[in-house]
């Protein structure tokens, strides 16, 4: 009964760095807390009313040097800690490269995780140790939050937009996964596990199609993709691409309409008709499918019909994987 944990496991690189920051802040807090707590008690005891043995002469009630001291010292410490924490946060959450990407869709009250090769997991996320992982999150209904305490990371899954988080798992094992944004009745049950496997085991697991769920030959909302066997996310995306008729205009040399070359979309800087330039990332692709008129590619007309309401989040995730694969195959990179 007394064998209970007091600290979480630390199983990611980012988590290790955050841990250090956490304990430094805690140390500072203990130091200052002790100064105040024990200082106040000491003073209140020493100067208690019936103690006449103590010197109360020259009891000034103002001292500029002390005021400056206890203003400037906390201020300097505050600025240092702020800067350290802000830099660490920016390093962790700003867009990074060279990652293994997983899409996670939150909905009341479960997590759907999609691997690029098509493997899907519910309320579980299996990951390789030692590689940078990117989780792209979105919600289908209310705001949820994807939290992995062992990695010290968390991000909100917001309906209507993608949020991304990056981390590098280090230690194989099983770790808690929680929803940490109150989302209704079964908020407490929207939990799961993150399973970290050594790289080779992970590859084997992926190739075996993951354990548990059958691999995808049909997508979540029942639309059957043509063909059987194990499909990667990108391959599912290709099927969805055709099923939705995207290939009438895109990647079609006989297209009646002049359209942007989507093999060049992923990762490049897209010039817009209004003069801005945006990054061709997941959010841009998702928005351009749902509401193409929001960001018109320079030199092209606003002719693409909006697919808002026509395509599920899961299909969007597949399409994005597919469009990414087009860019990858073009450059030959990963």
């Amino acid at each position, binding site marked *: 009964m007394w064998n209970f944990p007091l600290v979480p496991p630390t199983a990611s690189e980012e988590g290790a760095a955050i841990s250090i920051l956490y304990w430094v802040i805690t140390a500072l807090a203990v130091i200052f807390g002790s100064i105040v707590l024990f200082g106040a008690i000491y003073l209140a005891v020493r100067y208690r009313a019936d103690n006449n043995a103590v010197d109360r002469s020259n009891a000034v009630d103002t001292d500029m040097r002390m005021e400056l001291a206890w203003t400037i010292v906390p201020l300097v410490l505050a600025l240092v800690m702020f800067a350290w924490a802000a830099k660490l946060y920016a390093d962790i959450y700003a867009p990074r490269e060279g990652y293994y990407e997983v899409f996670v869709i939150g909905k009341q009250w479960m997590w759907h995780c999609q691997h690029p090769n098509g493997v899907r997991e519910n309320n579980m996320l299996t990951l390789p140790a030692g590689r940078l992982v990117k989780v792209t999150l979105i919600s289908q209904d209310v705001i949820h939050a994807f939290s992995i305490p062992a990695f010290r990371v968390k991000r909100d899954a917001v309906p209507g937009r993608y949020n991304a988080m990056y981390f590098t798992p280090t230690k194989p094992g099983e770790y808690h996964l929680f929803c940490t944004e109150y989302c209704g009745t079964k908020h407490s049950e929207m939990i799961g596990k993150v399973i970290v496997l050594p790289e080779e085991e992970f590859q084997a697991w992926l190739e075996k199609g993951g354990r548990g769920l059958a691999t995808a030959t049909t997508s979540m909302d029942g639309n059957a993709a043509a063909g059987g066997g194990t499909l990667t996310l990108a391959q599912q995306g290709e099927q969805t691409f055709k099923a939705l008729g995207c290939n009438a205009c895109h990647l079609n040399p006989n297209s009646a309409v002049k359209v942007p070359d989507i093999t060049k979309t992923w990762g490049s800087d897209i010039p817009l008709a209004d003069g801005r330039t945006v990054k061709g990332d997941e959010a841009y692709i998702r928005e351009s499918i749902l509401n*193409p*008129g929001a960001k018109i590619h320079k030199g092209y007309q*606003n002719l693409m*019909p*909006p697919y*808002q309401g026509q395509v599920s989040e899961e299909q969007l995730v597949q399409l994005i994987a597919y469009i990414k694969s087009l860019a990858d195959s073009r450059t030959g990179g990963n």
Partner: protein
Amino acid sequence: MSVQEIEKTATLEHTGDGHHHGDGILGEQFETLEQQNNAYLIGMWAFIVQEVLFFGAIFTSYAIYRYKYVLEFTLAHHELNVWFGSLNTFVLLLSSYTMARAVRAAMQNRHKKQAIYLFLTFLLAGEFMLNKYFEYGAKFEHHLFPGGDYSAHEVVKHAKEKGELRIVEENGREFYELGKTRDGQFIAFKRVTPEEFEQRTRLFFGFYFIMTGLHGLHVLVGMIVIAILIGRAWIDHLKNKPIADYMPVEMTGLYWHLVDIVWIFLFPLLYLIGR
């Protein structure tokens, strides 16, 4: 005695028995009339500041969504009647003038004049509300109230007539193209589904009714207060009261000018921009 002299010298003695005098004007808690008047003024200004924050938050939300959905909002706002809006602007401005005259009359203790100007203000405010009634009525008739039976039909119709909307069909689905017609040529800026168009124009009318509705509520409250003030002014006139407390009128005047200023912002933001 001038108002200033009265203010500076009217005071109160503590008799210590819990009863205080002062013709009912000076509150027990105050020492001088000047102090009381200043207190009421600062209090009223503080109230006005918080009203600014109240309206400010919804103005900000409106601005955010207008930026996001500028084309839909612009097409929707064509349904607003600029003539009624301008008339209302003029009416409110005029009512602020009559209100200011009423305050001055109150300061001068000319109660009949005070009552008349207050009454004119009340009438003008009533005119404003009457116009609102007609405006809102037309909106309800055209199913533009964002309730259960909202329909963007009118917006679509008028936009088409102005050459700013075109309906296209593709793969059996209907889309709206929003843009401009220049030299007989339709240039599309954006394409939306009918559902999106309905949602976004509905949002515009949601903001329209919330903002003008809250404002109208403030006008109504103001009218009630002014009605009370008219009664009191008239009684003061009939009783030939030499000195009455003008502060309630001044404070109501401040409130009324706030109500006017909120409209001065509402009118261009809702009715005018993008026209």
